[in-house]
């Protein structure tokens, strides 16, 4: 589990840095718990027959569950004082079905300041056995070790 007592600062981050990868095995149980928790009761996410009738191989993870995986990876990196500014744009590329393990990999692609905010863009990929299921970016704001002097 993550160490929530440490805080990452904007100055600590460099473009190209990798975030720790996390794996999320997708059992039927997990998908159904996620459907209930997210209130996403579209049957493609909990009913194999319906998912297959719609062209998928099996019931598959919802976008809310997949985004949640990204949020965990990002939050564990940015710490409690980091702020998620934007999730996306992201593209769902294939179904992450029951029986797959989703491995979220992420790296820092951009670091900049804007309107006194210290921003970082993180590229993420949710991999399954047949390739990328989701690709996209998340933008975050991090605290600075040294506050920027305010203009009078």
């Amino acid at each position, binding site marked *: *589990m*993550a160490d*929530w007592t440490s805080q990452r600062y904007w100055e600590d981050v460099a473009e190209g840095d990798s975030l720790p990868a996390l794996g*999320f095995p997708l059992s039927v149980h*997990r*998908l159904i*718990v*996620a459907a*209930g*928790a*997210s*209130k*996403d*009761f*579209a*049957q*493609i996410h909990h*009913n194999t*027959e*319906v998912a*297959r*009738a*719609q*062209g*998928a191989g099996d019931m598959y993870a*919802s*976008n*809310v*569950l997949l*985004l*949640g*995986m*990204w*949020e*965990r990876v990002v*939050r*564990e990196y940015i710490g*409690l*004082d980091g*702020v*998620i*500014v*934007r*999730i*996306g*744009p*992201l*593209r*769902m590329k294939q*179904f992450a079905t029951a029986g797959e393990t989703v491995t979220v990999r992420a790296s820092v692609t951009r670091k900049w300041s804007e309107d006194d905010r210290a921003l970082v863009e993180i590229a993420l990929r949710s991999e399954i056995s047949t390739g990328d299921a989701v690709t*996209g970016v998340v933008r975050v704001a991090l605290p600075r070790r040294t506050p920027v002097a305010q203009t009078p």
Partner: protein
Amino acid sequence: MGPPGRSGQCHGSLRRGTTIPDFSWAERDDWERAWDPLVAQIGQDFSEGSYDALDAIEAGAVRRFLEPLEFDCPLHVDEQVAAAHGYAGIIAPYSGLATWISAGLWNSGDEPIYAGADRNAHPRWRVNPYPTPGPDINGRTATDLQYDYVRPFAVGDKLRSCGRILTSVTPKETRVGRGAFLTWESKVVNQVDALIAEVHFGVYNYVARVRG
């Protein structure tokens, strides 16, 4: 987090009607033309207003959201930690925005929604968060997403989803069937009409190819 005072004032309701589906358009050689009327409606707001989340954000709902993620961030479970980091209370996970604006399945006063014992019967949506204009379809899946967050949302907040503006329609045949990629824009406000997030959402609406 963002310009104070940005407001998303919106009112009204969104409800879905019923239709008898006709999927024959997907069998025609000129199947793309079935989407022409919808292409002509790009820019239109299909929402008929707004809808409120059925429930305010609750601590128990937030905790349950974390379970399948095995996500132990204390901002989402510990009020004192959240306060120490500048929040008014336990904040809800950002990725769950669609959850926190859920209109629910059934509420007191609604008609029954479980009318039959068909194994795969799906109740009619109480409020369909994403209307399905265009030719009839039997498959839909999320394809694209962008949430721009203006401020966090915390336990006790009651959110409202405003507007559904159609921004693009792109007919395309894929390995799962024939249909069109649709993109939508909407926004989410809280109980005092302060803007929470702007939402860009894409779906693929299609008639499924029979799996051989």
